[in-house]
């Protein structure tokens, strides 16, 4: 429970920072950076935090279900633009994965050889 509190405090601090500084990233991403900095300062991951984080991350897929169910709000629009949307989504997602992974594997390898 203590560590869930810590996670929520980081998220809240992230939301406040985003609001105050008009940052173009979401509060939870800033919260992730804050918790990360905290871990660097501590120098290890406390056992309880590890358990809490693992619990949350193991069920991460579930957390997208409510937003995904929002598809029912857009049946009409999706039907009208089905071809451009689906082809763009399929091609773009695959292209992004291939470009990012091949480039990273190639650049990462050169670095490791040094």
């Amino acid at each position, binding site marked *: 429970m203590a560590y869930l509190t810590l*996670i*929520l405090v*980081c*998220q809240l601090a992230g939301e406040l920072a985003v609001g105050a500084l008009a940052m*173009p*990233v*979401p509060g*939870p*991403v800033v*919260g*992730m950076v*804050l*918790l*990360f900095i*905290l*871990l*660097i300062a501590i120098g290890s*991951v406390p056992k309880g935090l590890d358990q*809490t*984080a693992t619990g*949350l*991350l*193991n069920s*991460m*897929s*579930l*957390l*997208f*279900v*409510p*937003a*995904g*169910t*929002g*598809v*029912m*709000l857009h049946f009409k629009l999706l039907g009208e*633009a089905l*071809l*451009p*949307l689906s*082809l*763009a*989504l399929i*091609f*773009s*997602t*695959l292209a*992004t*994965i*291939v*470009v*990012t*992974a*091949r*480039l*990273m*594997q190639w650049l*990462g390898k050169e*670095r490791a050889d040094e």
Partner: protein
Amino acid sequence: MNSLQDTWVYLSATPLFHLTMTLVAFQVANFAFEKAGRNPLLNPVLGAVLLLVAMLLITGTDYGTYFEGAQFVHFLLGPATVALAVPLYRQWYNVRRSALAIAVSLIAGSLTAILTAVATAWFFGGSLPILASLAPKSVTAPVAMAIAEELGGLPSLTAVLVIATGIFGAMFGPGILNLVGVKDWRARGLAMGTASHGIGTARALQVNETAGAFSGLAMGLNALATALLLPIIWGILVGLLSV
């Protein structure tokens, strides 16, 4: 008969009912996914969404009523994103060692995601609001929605496209990575997170911790990169495609 009706009216109005249904639908979909040896075609997020949409349509429930219960699950996305700091910390040595490679690959991936999505949808006749809703599709939902609004898209459509992109990436990402011969877990994770944000990260975490950490990192960095780059190149794109 009447009391059954009353019970249903009562239950369907409490958050408990749709919260429970969300969890049950996911358990059923996840059970099928595991039973089928984690067959990517049985993606549990997709399965749960299909079950819930069917249930809501059959019972004539609107999304707002559903979300009153489901919001408790939805809320945990924030804390889960913060929790990604833990795998990231564990991989910090690896991340720092390849910082330049990560930065270059990520920016290339971010631009690929935007340009290929907008160009393909434009080619097949997508209107300007459709293009604007689609452009930030690879980024985590809250950022993508804010960007879409800024560009003149429909934020709630963007949310659906973001989830669809995540599910598609989680389903076919590992297969395409095998196909193009990428075995490096850092590269695989970085690609999954750049293209398909949190859903890709959830998938990567199931397979390998290094991949999960790099995916979480990529998700955060791509949110930042797209938020900074997309508004700048949007003007050029619209002019170029003359839409």
